[in-house]
């Protein structure tokens, strides 16, 4: 139990996927202009990450390893993630076409979100079991969502700030993301003692 808790804490805060490992930066920058869209993205990523973690573990454990096809893992995982993402897209379009509009290209791009593939590969590398994989995936997703929502709320505030012209838009967003990463360094070493 403590192990799982530490795993969750590590994946969501200490080694936050976005702010410490720099995985999944494209939606982090791309879908952080509107809070509603960010909430949608956070939920979609959480869904995809958790589902992909479980399924990739199953594929790895019960198909690739028994058949000696470990070298196929990148290919197979991407295929799997693409499928899950497509499913998420169908769901989003059915429930909220506005969200579908807002997420735009970034929804299918979850497929090539390095955070998702990263979680699947890290699960294999660290030899996580099924439960561990699911917890790792879900907490990575939660950490991504947390960072995304905090960042979006910050950017909405910056929208009305008197930012120098040279820094308006992407530059100030990147500076902010950098300072967020700096703040998250405060978690460094947490749980190591």
């Amino acid at each position: 139990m403590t192990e799982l808790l530490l795993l969750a804490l590590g994946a969501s805060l200490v080694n936050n996927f976005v702010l410490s490992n720099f995985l999944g930066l494209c939606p982090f920058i791309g879908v952080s202009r509107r809070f509603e869209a960010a909430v949608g993205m956070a939920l979609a990523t959480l869904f995809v990450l958790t589902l992909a973690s479980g399924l990739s573990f199953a594929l790895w454990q019960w198909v690739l390893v028994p058949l000696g096809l470990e070298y196929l893992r990148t290919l197979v995982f991407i295929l799997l993630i693409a499928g899950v993402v497509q499913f998420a897209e169908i769901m989003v379009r059915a429930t909220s076409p506005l969200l579908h509009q807002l997420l735009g290209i970034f929804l299918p791009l979850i497929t090539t979100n390095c955070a998702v593939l990263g979680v699947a590969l890290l699960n294999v590398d660290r030899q996580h079991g099924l439960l561990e994989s699911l917890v790792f995936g879900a907490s990575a997703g939660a950490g991504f969502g947390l960072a995304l929502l905090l960042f979006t709320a910050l950017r909405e505030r910056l929208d009305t700030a008197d930012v120098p012209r040279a820094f308006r838009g992407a530059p100030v967003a990147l500076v902010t993301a950098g300072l967020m990463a700096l703040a998250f360094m405060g978690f460094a070493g947490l749980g190591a003692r």
Partner: protein
Amino acid sequence: MRFDTSPAPHVIAGYTVPRVMFQVLFALLPAGMAHVVLFGPGLLLQLAVACVTALLAEAAALRWRGRDAAPALKDGSVLVTAFLLAFSIPPLLPWWLGALGTALAVLLGKHVFGGLGQNPFNPAMVGYAILLVSFPAEMTRWPVPMDVEGSRSWSELARMSVASFYGADLTTHWDGYTGATALDSIRSGLDLRYTLPELLARGDIAGTLGARGFAWINLAALAGGLYLMLRRIVRWHIPVAVLGGLLVPSFIAHGLDSGNALGPAMQAFSGATMLTAFFIATDPVSAATSDRGRLWYGAGIGLLAWIIRTWGGYPDGFAFAVLLMNLAVPFIDRYTVPRIYGRQP
């Protein structure tokens, strides 16, 4: 007869931002005096370099934007940033690090976002965190305070401070004069499996209320903070929440495991506790805006500082705790809008 028109209200109280800022500077006076008495005149040198750098950076940033720099320089806000940073860094820091930290605080922490009132992060803490991450050795080397038993003299401390300010290598002359802060020593002691009572029994760590040296500075900062509350510059929500967020968990943890967990008195009067609670966390620009939001914000800072002090990689977690809660402020503001008259909650 004809008259000019102008919108109501026609009379205002006449409070001004400079008045607020200079009251804050004034309230830092007792802490500054305690600092100088206990740690030597290093603080004054740091203050000088920080103030000069801050004013230059502010003027340069405004000039570059084509704006009038004079009112901004006079309003005192950038001096508050300089003071808070100078109070946070060790008094032995070489001048160029103090200048670098201040310049980064003002430029990266404030003017990139548009200057006064626009910065989401506390500029002084931005500067401090960058220095701490980039120069960990210099940033954790403090003079041994005067209230630790030994045969050190203040004038020797002063000579060392000046030498260190210009970058002299301290190990040759003043080896026994420098050391880690109390919180730092306790951390490393605990890592080496000493128990807390054993560590506190050593004369160089704990005073009556908290860490040697820092206990007095914290008391002085508390006095200055109470003055600000009396003058209604600072309202009670943030300081109380910060102290609550830090002290409640430390009280519980100390009760459960007095061998390893610091007690509330030690937590309250060591490190940057009081400075943060009354001067840093209360910076309104980077704090939450409603009363309820400020309680969450303050409690978050206290709790995160406790977590980082207890389990984290840094001895005093306040700078990071403040930055972490700064970035949560817009999020907190979103969910803590007070009830409007005549509306259902």
